[in-house]
């Protein structure tokens, strides 16, 4: 960014004088029409960070309302909109965008390619997703208007039928939910197609599939999974719109339709979706942990096999979200087994990261702090997942705050922590400047403390019987102090994220120069200048092992001797 559009200081100035306005307009135009995967990646990430702040504000609003019982900070209607929008935004406009943004930026660089397979499709996909998000948020000024709380979706992010039928949701809230996600879904589909084609068709010479960086592998698996994950949601939402506007009966329980069918279709999307979110996070960890332990990843082939295995098994576990719906005992038992089975390749990954660290020389730079916290937190999240997979226990825990604690442990404790690790790790490559290490450590410790204060406590309030999706609770149930503590943790996390946002902006202008390879890493993106030129590599790279830069830096002990 910094060196591609502005004139080089000190050179002969042969350009005619131009107004700031026209320079700004040209800069804006370049960003709007770009098909460069690096710029689109940055657009995705910035878009995602903006919505991280928005959805974070929604979470803070929720926690202020729930800090004390019978609070009047948010009306019931507005509360229901807040938690629906918080979940929908975080999954689709933050998680997907930031992670696919990193994929966009890094995959071509890591495989030694010049760009993605379909650059114009790439741009189209970004703008579809972006406009889908804008449509979703336009809902706040629809309906009764901004002061009447608008018509933002208020039916939870899983939008169960028949609550979403015209009869029970007469306004446009559900329509905004369905239509904006259909639009954004096309964008996601386009990016997934692009990543699959790029990784299979544009690898540089010598980079066989088993020599790709693990991040690329995980994005390939994620994209393949996305192709068959997002599309069921699109199908179900099309059915919902047909029900609401063309008088269809897909989910009309009074005409032979079934509310349970919606649940199946939604969770056939919904469960693999969380793997679409967590697999890229695994990819980030598999890049950061080796570099900062100064060791190659332990068990690369097993990591690949485990990732593929997770993707496949995750397609068969969806009804563990439906243990209380009245499936037969045999049906419930099947999904208990499949859910527990997915824990095996997942735990394998944790052990591989542990073995990578073992015997290494750990550097506690900020990316590594986040990655290490991720491993602990993901371990815990996986274990509470095992608890939830025991169906009879789930009959108690389902739809309680224990579930919210579990999935936030994954979404925040694993995914957001890895997103932060990724940002601290690759920001220097993208901007040419290092993020401030002191601010980074403040961000990390505050966020860690706030995260645990909130989400550790949340497990208990769920065990004590507090259900989810409630705008207030009774004061005699013993949940008061715990809720207050949870809310305090939320504020702490908010402060940490604000420090982070400040770091991002401040370091862009004042950060230390990064150079090509500030972390002494081993994958191809670190062989380019920071930021890389438009064409990425001056000559097509050729690789002989999984860590091409290790081979160059250690010609006496190259990787290809051992692979």
């Amino acid at each position, binding site marked *: 960014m910094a060196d591609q559009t502005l004139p080089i200081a000190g050179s002969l100035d042969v350009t005619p004088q131009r107004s700031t306005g026209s320079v700004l307009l040209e800069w804006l135009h370049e960003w709007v029409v770009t098909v460069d995967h690096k710029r689109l990646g940055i657009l995705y990430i910035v878009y995602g960070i903006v919505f991280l702040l928005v959805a974070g504000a929604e979470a803070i609003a929720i926690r202020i309302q729930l800090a004390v019982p019978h609070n009047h900070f948010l*009306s*019931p*209607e507005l509360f*229901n909109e807040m938690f629906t929008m918080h979940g929908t935004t975080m999954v689709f406009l933050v998680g997907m965008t930031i992670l696919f943004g990193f994929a966009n930026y890094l995959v071509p660089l890591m495989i030694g390619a010049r760009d993605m397979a379909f650059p114009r499709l790439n741009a189209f996909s970004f703008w579809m997703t972006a406009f889908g998000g804008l449509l979703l948020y336009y809902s706040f000024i629809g309906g009764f208007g901004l002061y009447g709380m608008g018509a933002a979706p*208020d*039916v939870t992010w899983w939008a*169960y039928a*028949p*609550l979403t039928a015209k009869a*029970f949701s007469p306004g446009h809230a559900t329509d905004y939910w369905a239509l904006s996600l259909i639009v954004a879904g096309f964008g996601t589909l386009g990016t997934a197609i692009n990543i699959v084609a790029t990784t299979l068709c544009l690898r540089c010479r010598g980079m066989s599939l088993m020599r790709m960086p693990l991040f690329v592998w995980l994005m390939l698996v994620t994209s393949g999974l996305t192709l068959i994950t997002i599309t069921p949601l699109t199908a179900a939402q099309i059915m919902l719109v047909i029900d609401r506007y063309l008088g269809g009966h897909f989910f009309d*329980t*009074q005409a032979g339709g079934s509310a*349970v069918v919606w649940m199946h279709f939604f969770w056939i999307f919904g469960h693999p979706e969380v793997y679409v979110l967590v697999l890229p996070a695994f990819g980030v960890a598999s890049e950061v942990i080796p570099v900062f*332990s100064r060791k190659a990843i*332990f*068990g*690369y*082939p*097993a990591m690949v096999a485990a990732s593929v295995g997770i993707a496949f098994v995750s397609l068969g576990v969806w009804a563990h979200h439906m243990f*209380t719906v009245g499936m*037969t*005992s045999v049906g*419930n*038992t099947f999904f*208990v087994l499949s859910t527990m089975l997915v*824990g*095996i390749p997942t*735990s*394998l990954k944790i*052990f591989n990261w*542990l*073995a990578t*660290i*073992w*015997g290494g*020389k*750990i550097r506690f730079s900020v990316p590594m702090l986040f990655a*290490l*916290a991720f491993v*602990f937190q993901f*371990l*815990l999240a996986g*274990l509470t997942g*095992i608890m939830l997979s*025991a169906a*009879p226990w789930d*009959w*108690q825990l389902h*739809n309680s705050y224990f579930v919210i604690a579990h999935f936030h442990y994954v979404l925040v404790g694993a995914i957001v922590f890895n997103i932060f690790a990724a940002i601290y790790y690759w920001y220097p490559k993208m901007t040419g400047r290092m993020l401030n290490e002191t601010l980074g450590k403040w961000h990390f410790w505050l966020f860690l403390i706030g995260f*645990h204060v909130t989400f*550790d406590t949340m*497990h208990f309030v769920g065990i004590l*019987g507090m*259900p*989810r999706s*409630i705008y207030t609770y*009774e004061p005699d149930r*013993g949940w008061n102090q715990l809720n207050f503590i949870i809310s305090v943790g939320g504020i702490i996390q908010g402060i940490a994220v604000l420090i982070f946002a400040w770091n991002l902006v401040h370091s862009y202008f004042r950060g230390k120069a990064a150079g090509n390879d500030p972390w002494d890493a081993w994958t191809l993106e670190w062989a380019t200048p920071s930021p890389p030129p438009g064409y990425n590599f001056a000559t097509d790279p050729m690789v002989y092992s999984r860590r091409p830069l290790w081979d160059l830096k250690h010609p006496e002990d190259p990787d290809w001797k*051992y*692979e």
Partner: protein
Amino acid sequence: MKSLIRQHRTSRFWNAVVPFLFLFCAVAVPSAWADGPQSTPSILAPASTPAHSIYNLSLFVLAITGGIFVVVAGLLAFAIIRYRERKTDDASEPVQIYGSVQVELAWTVIPILIVVVLFLTTARIIFAIQDAPEPKSALDVTVVGHQFWWEFRYPKLGIVTANELHVPVSKATYLHLLSADVDHSFWVPQLGGKTDLIPNHPNQMWIQPDHTGLYLGQCAQFCGVEHAKMLLRVYVDSPEQFADWVKDEQQPGVQDPQVAQGRQIFETHACTNCHAIAGTAAVGTFGPDLTHLASRATIASGAALNTPANLRDWIKDPDQFKPGALMPAMQLSDAEIDQLVAYLSTLH
């Protein structure tokens, strides 16, 4: 730099231990409470047969997952401390280890074995609870979920009531779950796991309480704007208490001549569109049955205590307690409401 490392070491240690301590307290502390009902509907204080089965399973699962956590988190904590880069280290890279077939096989096989054990134990409990045959002496209750209240029918006893459920202790009660509109979920943690109420998809669950008393719960599937106020009160009665309650419920509504004026207001206004009072002309089914309203401790499905003042405010403007509740403000004059409340207060 050295102090930073020390700080890391201590924090890393507590980072590993503290969550486990939390989890341990979560189990130990509530379990130390006495058996029987309490106002915190904790799943760790079971008071009914299926709740006990679930609780025992949960302890087993917790023990295994707790053990896994101690081992893996312990190894992680150890690795982070032992293998950190020290100032006195040279610039060489550590020995690169790419994998080990034996180790990787071991840590694949052991989790598979753990899964097998967990799965078989869980499957046994699923069948024990879900497929338990209904005993002949069981009480049958039909539960109909509405936005935002609970309808309870005892078909064999000819009873229709709302929001507060009475069941006998020690006997099994089978709940047949239906819905009149959207999805709901019946959850009273101390008495059993939750089961959903889905329109056109009848479900069934059973409880078998072992102590008398009042147990609290609430709807556990988002059902609309007032989902939070669709509360549940389950009274587990001794055999005598239950028999008395049944006898009372089977009577038609009290006809106290002193409040005839209020009854007349009830019967001639739109109240009868939604509500029923046995023995009067009111047979509405859209709202709760009010025949024995005065015997209930709360109104509006737990949203407020059942006092004349609250009843008054509720009828005047339901949005005060439950904004978005489907009962409209009845547009009655204050005098009319007073008489109406006087009448309703006699309906024991």
